[in-house]
């Protein structure tokens, strides 16, 4: 008896020592510390999902994400998936309280037998705790804490929630997080569409997503799948006899390229950038926000079609020009295109380059390029506002201001030209003279007020488009004119909702009057002449509804065209990213204009263009384009009543010269 008491005492003391030692061990290693804050990472976890972007008819056009993830509530996850998961990873899931003692025991026995762990004993809860709260380091302390936290977690949230968190956040390889994302990326299927074959393969990946990645190592993946199928059969998820049949079913892997799934990738990138601006630090693409944009699917398709149809022509011109360049300069002509509705300010289509796959650089808003003559409407508008008239005649001669010597593209000197003719032929020297007359500061200020946000150089060359701007800058300026002086901020995002559907951002239309309507009509009239008599004469067929302006920077480095009607503005640019000159003089009218024309032609069936109607207080009078006097054979120009030219042809000395060869030439 005494002996028994002694033994019991020893055991008791030993247990006290063990318990004490264990308690000390746990205390020292903080196994029970910060439980609440650790579990909060799981209990307070917000569901993650890719953000989705929709066009103006609310159809999805693309997604934004940091990691590819499609949140699916557990109720919507097919039962077979859950059953498979449990069969493989945690068959006692619904019975244990976070950890499975039997499984731990089995592992212990296996360890004693074989000297190593033959299989895992982690429950789904433990795996979840490990993913969110711990590291994957195999040490006793981590394991003890994992068990403890799992136990605690099961007290806090339901088994259902644990399953939902698990199936939506575990890594399945190939960049996909969650079973829905994996299903999309491996098989391009929704969860409701996946087969047992596919389910078994995907669940098998959980053990080691990289090692079993079927796209990289199908044999390993299939071996793993077989084990999954065995587990499924063991646990009654499938019948044993159907195992082989399922195993041998063909797996149709789909190549997943996110870009291919995006309808307008340049636009989607732009939206991503705009979201950062609008939401600031709150922006997280994995929060499953929904972004409703202004993109018009038909317009975008026509833009792409127009660019595609000109790729060969541009490529041929590129080859032709390459001959004139040093070998080190590789000419690669790019194209960008932007379509907006000036009435609303909405961006309808955006193409930042020839091919998104080849280059993701968005030339619509990321590239700063010289606009060339595309900026001239702002100068001439300023001139008209300052009291100059379309019929004012100027002598076109070479100019020099200190070291600056602007040239006309056609070298057409020794002639005269009205402001109107100088505008529609896009002559440089009169534009510089006008700027000089108006004052450079004033002109630059006007650029700014018309919507050009890029900083402009304080030099006369800026009036000829010497300062670099973005296509969006130009679109803002042109939209102000197109909307008869009422500037509506250009925008692409209508509204943003969170995952629950609450609106977190709604675009507010901001309007400001930047041009008097009469002057807008006058500059529009000038731009119509560009298309009927000037540098865009080629597009005269569209001049009934559209007006426009070409732009070419020095040596044809940048080639632009912008044309608009009251409800449609389209702008295109052609040039190289490395600013190489085009030795053959193509200009905006030969490179950019044909693309624009094709687009507009195809758009007639998509958006019915509206016409500009001159108010009644305007008079149309024909003037001689060189000298500005009234002439029946001249160019018809819209003038405000009371501000029409008064000089008849008989009063003009120029007229005498052009008729008789010389003025007062009686001594011939």
């Amino acid at each position, binding site marked *: 008896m005494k002996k028994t008491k002694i033994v019991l005492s020893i055991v008791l003391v030993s247990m006290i020592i063990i318990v004490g030692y264990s308690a000390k061990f746990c205390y020292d290693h903080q196994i029970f510390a910060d439980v609440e804050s650790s579990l909060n990472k799981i209990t307070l976890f917000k569901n993650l999902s890719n953000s989705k972007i929709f066009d103006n008819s609310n159809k999805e056009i693309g997604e934004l994400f940091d990691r590819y993830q499609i949140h699916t509530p557990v109720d919507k996850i097919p039962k077979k998936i859950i059953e498979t998961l449990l069969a493989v990873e945690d068959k006692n899931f619904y019975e244990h309280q976070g950890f499975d003692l039997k499984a731990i025991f089995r592992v212990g026995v296996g360890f004693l037998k074989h000297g190593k762990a033959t299989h895992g004993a982690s429950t789904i809860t433990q795996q979840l705790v490990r993913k969110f709260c711990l590291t994957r380091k195999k040490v006793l302390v981590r394991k003890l804490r994992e068990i403890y936290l799992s136990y605690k977690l099961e007290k806090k949230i339901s088994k259902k929630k644990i399953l939902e968190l698990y199936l939506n956040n575990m890594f399945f390889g190939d960049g996909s997080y969650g079973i829905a994302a994996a299903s999309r990326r491996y098989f391009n299927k929704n969860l409701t569409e996946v087969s047992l074959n596919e389910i078994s393969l995907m669940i098998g990946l959980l053990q080691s997503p990289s090692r079993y990645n079927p796209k990289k190592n199908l044999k390993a993946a299939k071996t793993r799948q077989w084990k999954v199928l065995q587990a499924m059969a063991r646990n009654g998820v499938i019948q044993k006899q159907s195992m082989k049949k399922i195993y041998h079913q063909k797996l149709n892997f789909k190549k997943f390229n996110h870009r291919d799934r995006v309808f307008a990738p340049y636009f989607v990138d732009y939206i991503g950038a705009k979201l950062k601006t609008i939401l600031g630090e709150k922006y997280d693409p994995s929060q499953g926000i929904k972004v409703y944009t202004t993109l018009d699917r038909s317009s975008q398709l026509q833009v792409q079609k127009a660019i595609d149809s000109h790729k060969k022509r541009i490529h041929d011109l590129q080859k032709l020009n390459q001959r004139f360049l040093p070998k080190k300069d590789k000419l690669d002509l790019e194209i960008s295109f932007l379509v907006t509705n000036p009435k609303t300010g909405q961006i309808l289509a955006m193409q930042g380059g020839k091919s998104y796959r080849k280059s993701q650089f968005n030339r619509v808003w990321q590239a700063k390029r010289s606009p060339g003559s595309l900026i001239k409407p702002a100068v001439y508008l300023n001139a008209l506002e300052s009291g100059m008239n379309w019929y004012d*005649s100027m*002598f076109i*001669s*070479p*100019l*020099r201001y200190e070291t600056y*010597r602007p040239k006309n593209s056609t*070298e*057409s*000197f*020794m002639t*005269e030209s009205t402001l109107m003719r100088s505008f529609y032929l896009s002559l440089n020297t009169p534009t510089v003279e006008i700027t000089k007359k108006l004052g450079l500061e004033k002109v630059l200020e006007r650029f700014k007020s018309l919507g050009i946000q890029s900083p402009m150089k304080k030099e006369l060359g800026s009036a000829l488009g010497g300062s670099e701007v973005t296509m969006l800058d130009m679109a803002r300026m042109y939209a102000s004119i197109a909307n008869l002086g009422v500037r509506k901020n250009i925008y692409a995002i209508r509204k943003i909702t969170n995952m629950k559907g609450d609106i977190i951002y709604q675009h507010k239309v901001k309007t400001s009057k930047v041009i008097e309507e009469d002057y807008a009509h006058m500059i529009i009239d000038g731009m119509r002449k560009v298309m009927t008599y000037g540098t865009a004469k080629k597009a005269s067929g569209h001049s009934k509804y559209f007006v426009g302006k070409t732009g070419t920077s020095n040596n044809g480095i940048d080639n632009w065209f912008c044309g608009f009607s009251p409800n449609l503005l389209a702008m295109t640019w052609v040039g190289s990213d490395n600013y190489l000159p085009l030795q053959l003089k193509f200009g905006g009218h030969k490179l950019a204009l044909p693309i624009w024309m094709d687009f507009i032609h195809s758009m007639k069936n998509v958006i019915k263009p509206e016409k500009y109607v001159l108010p009644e207080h305007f008079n149309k009078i024909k003037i001689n384009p060189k000298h500005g006097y009234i002439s029946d054979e001249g160019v018809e120009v819209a003038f405000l009543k009371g501000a029409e030219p008064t000089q008849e042809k*008989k*009063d*003009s*000395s*120029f*007229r*005498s*010269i052009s008729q*008789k*060869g*010389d*003025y*007062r*030439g*009686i*001594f*011939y």
Partner: protein
Amino acid sequence: MVSFINIFFLLVMISTPSFAVSKNKWTTDKCKMVFNYVKKPYLKLYKHLLIEKRKKIHPRYKKLLKSNKNLCNDPKSRKDLRLFLEEILAMRNNHVGLMSQLGGDTNTPAHNVYSSMSSYFQNNNPKVKFNVLDTGYDFSSFLRQLALAVLVLDVNYIVLGPGKYSIHQAKKILHQLRLPTFVLSNDNGGFQSKFSFQVFPNLDQMTKTLLIELELQKKYRLSLVSSRLSSIFMQSLKNNLKYFPKLSVVSEHEFNPDEYQSMDKTVRSLLKLNPEDQPIEYKKLALLESNNTKAKTFDAAFQLEAIKEFDVVVFPGNFKNLKHFTRTLKYFRSGPVQIVGSQKWRSKELVNPLPKILENSYFVDYVGYYNMLPKNISDYQLDQKDHSFVGASDVSNIDFKLIGTRAAEIISQATNLQSSSRTIKVGLIHKMSHSKSNFFKAGRVFSENRKSNWPAFMFKLTDKKLNLFRIR
């Protein structure tokens, strides 16, 4: 064989009163010779006269055309014939015939001359019977109308209006007719007869006036810049340079007014901005250019300093070419350049605004302020504030109205000269002095070479204005 000189003297004799006292010399041979010579042009005209008009020939000419040289054989008939020929060659009336290509348009130089002459005679000398004859555009048509004027209308003063008459074809018959003829054109077609007078702005006078001014202002070294459109002015200027030994032409440049490159070349050459003109400087700059990274925009010739070896540039081109010229000078950094020119400068377009380089430049014109013009011309609506300019179409109208008015003034004055002899009459006309006129102040009407002494006006350019500073 009777020489042309002999006939001339005979004609002079019979058309002068002194001939009466030398009747002994009127031999049969001489009679025949003179008769043939006098009849010949009338016969030629008769052949060109329309058949229906032939009945209306003046009886005097009917008689002449019917007469035969054999009348000279009989002494009495010969005497009568002499008196008849005297009558044919006399100034008998104040009938004036304006020969002009009128056409359909009323706003032509010819119509302006016609209307101004008609108006002048109506208001100032109603005794003059003024006839206008549309000559059409070919020589036979001209002869037909001349026949009508002489044989039917019996005109004593012929006026050749502005236009292309082929005067060189008509000059022979006009001389044979021995009628005072007034050519209202700069080109008299070599019609140098003592019976011909040119009534037109006098280019020689203008260029001389300009040269006088240059000499006065000590602008001795001249560079001439012209185009084909001002070659006549330049030729006149060069011809007159011989009267101004102090003045010399240092360079001549011609440009094509339709081509910028030629103007560019002209100015480079004028300012010696060429590698050939400044080889050393050019080489230095070219070397700099080759080292310059912005070589594409570097133009060595452009960087040369302008060399001006002239005191003045004579630029008689029109205001438009002048503006391009001054702008090109500015482009090439010419600095101040004294430029002078011709009437072609006058235009509002030149002075509004006036290129700075032209401040105080001057030009010569044949019209002064428009409010100085004779009354019937200055009916135009002139800007009350500025009498320098009129509308462009009015410029041409006024010029030719002024010419027409001037011709009418001279003819009117000539009709008052008392002489029935054509030879004496033309002599008197040649020596005639200006009657009172606002425009034509004093001195003889015609110069020695029978060109009208037309005043030349010197204008100076200031901003938006022309300042008349000299009249010669």
